[in-house]
């Protein structure tokens, strides 16, 4: 077939001529099937709850028994010298649970230490030193420095991988059973006296993670909606020559594929020169370099200075969110010198804190391009939760808007490993601004060492799962 045969118009006409496909089910058959399925689903829900409350009551009773027996031992009811009361207890504590709390209060629990040895480097957040609330995850570079010293203060939730039961005894196992149904994720900011409880919750989270996330494992309580990873293409606001991004579903694309797709779709050159882009290769290492391989016959050397500038803007908007800091150009086996300056590499800034929807609805503008604040008063880059707070307002501009709609209030942000839980309440959550909010949050998270963001609406028992990184 001649390649010229498919003009846009012909293609559009052909699509319009696609045959209507009719449902072969009759109306009655369909109604019957719908009714049958609806009836079938309703009792199932009831049945699934019937075991829940008795199970909870049994677990609670068992917990009480387990808590009471050791106290009888300590108060002399079982006063034999062979009794199990620990020697260091002094016989003064009423409840033996203090024995478990003691190491936790010291924040130096053996279980935590053991687990840290096993899972060193898994904690990518930088928790506050008081252990009461974790702070936002740092950038990649900071992550590598975080491998030691965090030990005692670090968020216990990340560090416990199933060994607590050995250290904390049966009480915790029982509590775990009791709490699995109701403990919220990310609740690691309770006070230290509840560290054991947190350990339990961490156990349940670890188990749940095998089934993708906590809420799926507890889907009786939370409805979970999983969004797709996003990629961006970029386009220019003609009047101001400002580049913005248009989010799209990644559709299973790898980072490399996403880069090629984004650059070809966002091609800022007059002659569509990026069509000659054949491959993108991430070079790895700490410098986060990427090499763009072009066909040997390409026109990139003839870029005008304006095109060169636009190309740099596009590279910044489409690649920096993959933490790319240096872009190299190659054609065949050799360096490709582009534009009038004959450069073969472009440096990018990997610092961006937030995205804001354009008032025109065409896409989102990065905080870096918009000039919104990206650092705190001390000059440090904002962490993830500070960035979300920043995204609630804009500094007097009218061409873009706050990313957090008026109808949404962010109540809290917590972290579990590489997952951020954003707790919010919403007056209404199905409008377009909420969709844009989700896009802005997901793109913002790409600049942090986060794998997933979970938007949690506790009131509505709804969770939106935003996968952040591409494979």
């Amino acid at each position, binding site marked *: 077939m001649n390649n010229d045969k498919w003009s846009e118009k012909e293609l559009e006409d052909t699509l319009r001529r696609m*045959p209507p496909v009719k449902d072969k089910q009759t109306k009655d058959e*369909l109604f019957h099937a*719908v009714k049958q399925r609806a009836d079938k689903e309703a009792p199932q829900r009831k049945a699934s709850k019937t075991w829940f409350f008795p199970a909870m009551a049994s677990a609670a009773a068992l917990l009480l028994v387990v808590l009471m027996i050791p106290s009888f031992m300590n108060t002399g009811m079982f006063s034999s010298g062979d009794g199990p009361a620990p020697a260091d207890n002094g016989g003064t504590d009423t409840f033996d649970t203090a024995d478990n709390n003691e190491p936790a209060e010291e924040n130096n629990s053996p279980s935590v230490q053991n687990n840290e040895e096993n899972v060193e480097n898994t904690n990518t957040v930088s928790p506050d030193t008081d252990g009461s609330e974790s702070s936002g995850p740092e950038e990649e570079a900071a992550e590598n420095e975080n491998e030691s010293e965090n030990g005692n203060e670090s968020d216990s939730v990340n560090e416990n991988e199933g060994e607590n039961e050995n250290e904390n005894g049966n009480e915790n196992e029982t509590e775990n059973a009791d709490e699995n149904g109701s403990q919220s994720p990310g609740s690691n900011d309770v006070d230290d006296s509840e560290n054991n409880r947190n350990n339990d919750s961490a156990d349940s989270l670890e188990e749940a993670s095998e089934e993708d996330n906590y809420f799926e494992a507890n889907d009786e309580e939370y409805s979970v909606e999983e969004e797709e990873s996003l990629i961006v293409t970029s386009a220019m606001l003609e009047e101001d020559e400002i580049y913005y991004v248009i989010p799209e579903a990644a559709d*299973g694309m790898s980072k490399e594929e996403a880069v090629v797709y984004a650059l070809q779709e966002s091609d800022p050159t007059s002659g569509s020169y990026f069509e000659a882009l054949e491959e993108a290769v991430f070079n790895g290492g700490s410098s986060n370099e990427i090499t763009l391989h072009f066909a040997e016959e390409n026109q990139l050397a003839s870029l005008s200075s304006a095109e060169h500038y636009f190309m740099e803007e596009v590279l910044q908007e489409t690649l920096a969110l993959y933490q790319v800091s240096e872009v190299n150009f190659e054609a065949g086996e050799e360096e490709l010198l582009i534009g009038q300056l004959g450069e073969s590499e472009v440096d990018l800034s990997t610092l961006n804190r937030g995205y804001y929807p354009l008032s025109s609805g065409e896409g989102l503008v990065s905080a870096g391009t918009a000039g919104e604040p990206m650092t705190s008063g001390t000059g440090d880059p904002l962490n993830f939760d500070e960035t979300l707070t920043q995204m609630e307002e804009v500094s007097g501009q009218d061409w873009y808007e706050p990313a957090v709609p008026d109808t949404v209030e962010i109540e809290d942000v917590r972290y579990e490993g590489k997952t951020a839980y954003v707790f919010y309440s919403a007056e209404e959550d199905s409008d377009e601004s909420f969709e844009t909010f989700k896009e802005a949050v997901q793109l913002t998270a790409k600049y942090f060492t986060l794998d997933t963001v979970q938007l949690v609406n506790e009131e509505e028992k709804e969770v939106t799962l935003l996968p952040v990184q591409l*494979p």
Partner: protein
Amino acid sequence: MREEFERLYSAYHQQLFQYLFYLVRNRETAEELVQEVYIKVLHSYEAFEGKSSEKTWLYSIAKHAAIDWIRRQSRKKRKFEGKEYEWSEREFEIEDKQPLPDEIVARQDEIQHVYKTMKKCTKDQQQVIVLRYIQGLSIAESADILGWSESKVKTTQHRAIKALQKHLQTDGENVPGKEGSP
């Protein structure tokens, strides 16, 4: 319930079924999903606030049902193979196992070819192609259903046609001639 069902059925059913069919590209699955849509609609009809039209509300429920199904398929496949498959997983399943539906087989080669090639577009692009061209919905209606801005619908539509054109041209040599068509 019956009254409500009958009204929705006569007003929207065939359109809704066609939408689901072109998204999942399988008649049996579309039949199951359309039942699921009615169950959801009839359960939540009282909660419908009328912010959007009834039609776009139904379509958004259908869209979610189809996307959920596609994701479930991807997860099953991932668990089975231990690999990452997303949209593409569904593609080769269809390519390898699904015969062309009768309605498509009965049409000219060029329609068959475009139908087969559509699956090479991204999910967003396919959504827009189905809504805008096959279903003939307006930009505003499509935007409402997809939860996008109208600009995004326009941009995606433009890119979808470009992408489809490119895929057709790439595959062109292996396809029966379009010249014979009227």
